[in-house]
């Protein structure tokens, strides 16, 4: 009896365990030996660059991932250390320090909605009572708004924003720049392609309009749209404004933010300023149309007050 139990235990536990364990052990030893024999000298510079990068592997730098960017940087193939938007200025500075590259000027970016056609400025062509979604409304005669290029205002962009940086007011979307991280999800969500990622300067002049109608038709449908009068195009000395058909477009790279185009725009389609702060209620300090106050206006008012006081 004792013997039988002994053999059963031997055969059904010890032998399989030994076989399995033995094979695993042999394989483990072979792996260790091969890794030792075929070890590659590790590129220390590459390793360090790789460690500085955040390791999200998002591909926003234009390479396949952090490894790709690290390889390009350490081999000297790429000398721009500011390609990583996730790491931001800190990572860029650290990379530049380590690689001895020129200190990059890292400009943060922000999403920007190219439409000011609030309910005050546009009309409704029909009563829409379908699914509350821009892409659904866009499918039905390009949406209910009188301007078929403008924001529909059902908030597909606000829905996808993981940071709560987009809010809807007066029938259009607004971006709170203090919360926006320029991830670009809203850009993809907008069926009208109204959102773009632009540099986050305090003075950001944009033609907040995307309509391609001739001026007369624009005036009929929206009181604040770009009518293609070309005044800003003519006044810009830096070649930053180009005409895309009847629509003026400001090149953010060339723009020096002088503000001359703003003064000549007859409809107010050009505007300045990104919303950069929130008030005590957590709402962006600027809302709707009055998104900013012209510092020159403020100075004028101050001067007038001073004159009155005298």
């Amino acid at each position, binding site marked *: 009896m004792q013997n039988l139990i002994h053999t059963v235990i031997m*055969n059904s536990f010890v*032998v*399989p365990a030994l*076989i*399995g364990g033995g*094979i*695993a052990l042999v*394989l*483990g030893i*072979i*792996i260790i030996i*091969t*890794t030792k024999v*075929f*070890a*590659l000298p590790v590129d220390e510079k590459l390793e360090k660059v790789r460690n500085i990068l955040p390791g999200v592997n998002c591909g926003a730098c234009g390479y396949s991932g952090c490894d790709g960017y690290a390889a390009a940087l350490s081999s000297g193939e790429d000398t721009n250390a500011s390609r990583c938007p996730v790491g931001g200025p800190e990572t860029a500075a650290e990379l530049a320090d380590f690689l001895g590259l020129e200190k990059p000027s890292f400009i943060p970016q922000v999403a920007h909605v190219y439409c000011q056609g609030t309910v005050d400025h546009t009309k409704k062509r029909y009563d829409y009572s379908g699914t509350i979604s821009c892409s659904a409304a866009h499918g039905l005669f390009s949406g209910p708004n009188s301007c078929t290029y403008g924001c529909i205002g059902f908030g597909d962009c606000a829905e996808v924003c993981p940071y709560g940086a987009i809010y809807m007011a007066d029938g259009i979307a607004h971006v709170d720049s203090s919360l926006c991280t320029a991830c670009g999800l809203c850009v993809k969500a907008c069926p009208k392609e109204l959102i773009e990622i632009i540099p986050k300067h305090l003075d950001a002049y944009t033609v907040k309009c995307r309509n391609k109608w001739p001026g007369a038709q624009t005036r009929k449908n929206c009181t604040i749209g770009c009518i293609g009068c070309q005044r800003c195009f003519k006044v810009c000395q830096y070649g930053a404004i180009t005409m895309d058909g009847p629509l003026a477009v400001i090149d953010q790279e060339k723009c020096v933010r002088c503000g001359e185009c703003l003064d000549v725009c007859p409809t107010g389609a050009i505007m300045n300023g990104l919303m950069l702060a929130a008030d005590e209620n957590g709402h962006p300090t600027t809302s709707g149309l009055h998104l900013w106050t012209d510092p020159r206006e403020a100075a004028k008012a101050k001067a007038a007050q001073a004159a009155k006081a005298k």
Partner: protein
Amino acid sequence: MKELLIILFSAILVDNFVLSKFLGVCPFLGVSKNIKTAMGMSFAVLFVMVLATAITWPIFNLILFPLDLNYLQTVIFILVIASLVQIIEVFLKKVIPPLYSALGIFLPLITTNCAILGLTILNIDEGYTFVQSMFSAVGAGLGFMLALFLFSGIRVKVDHADVPKFMKGLPIALVSAALVSISFFGFKGLIEQLFS
């Protein structure tokens, strides 16, 4: 010889691993977006299939079977395949860097590929000899390559086609995969005719 050819061709056409046994469907859908990556994956699979069979067959027939430990085959085979891929990766990285970078990410992905494990277990189940197993492994690898090559070609075409929005992406890929699979059923009975 005739028998070996039958094994080879039936593994490629009739018993195609992807299209009639439905093994390795994840790489079939995952890396078939263009022909280049599909071929990279197929070469890696072919390579590992042949090596895995060459190692698992002796392990089973010389160690597990004589000791009556058949039930251990799945565990041991997974262990062997995983370590094998590790060793191959390290080896290729040093000795043949171009092949290593060509196979790229696909080599480690194969570690958990059911087609490899399925092949090694099926070889045992069919009672193949060592040479027969090797032919079946080469056939299975070539069959995988054929399926992936055909399917990636179809997907490249579908990319440029006007697909309804709700069918874009994976839905249309699954439908076309089903159609390719059905077309392979046409090969049933072909092999007996071919070598008779």
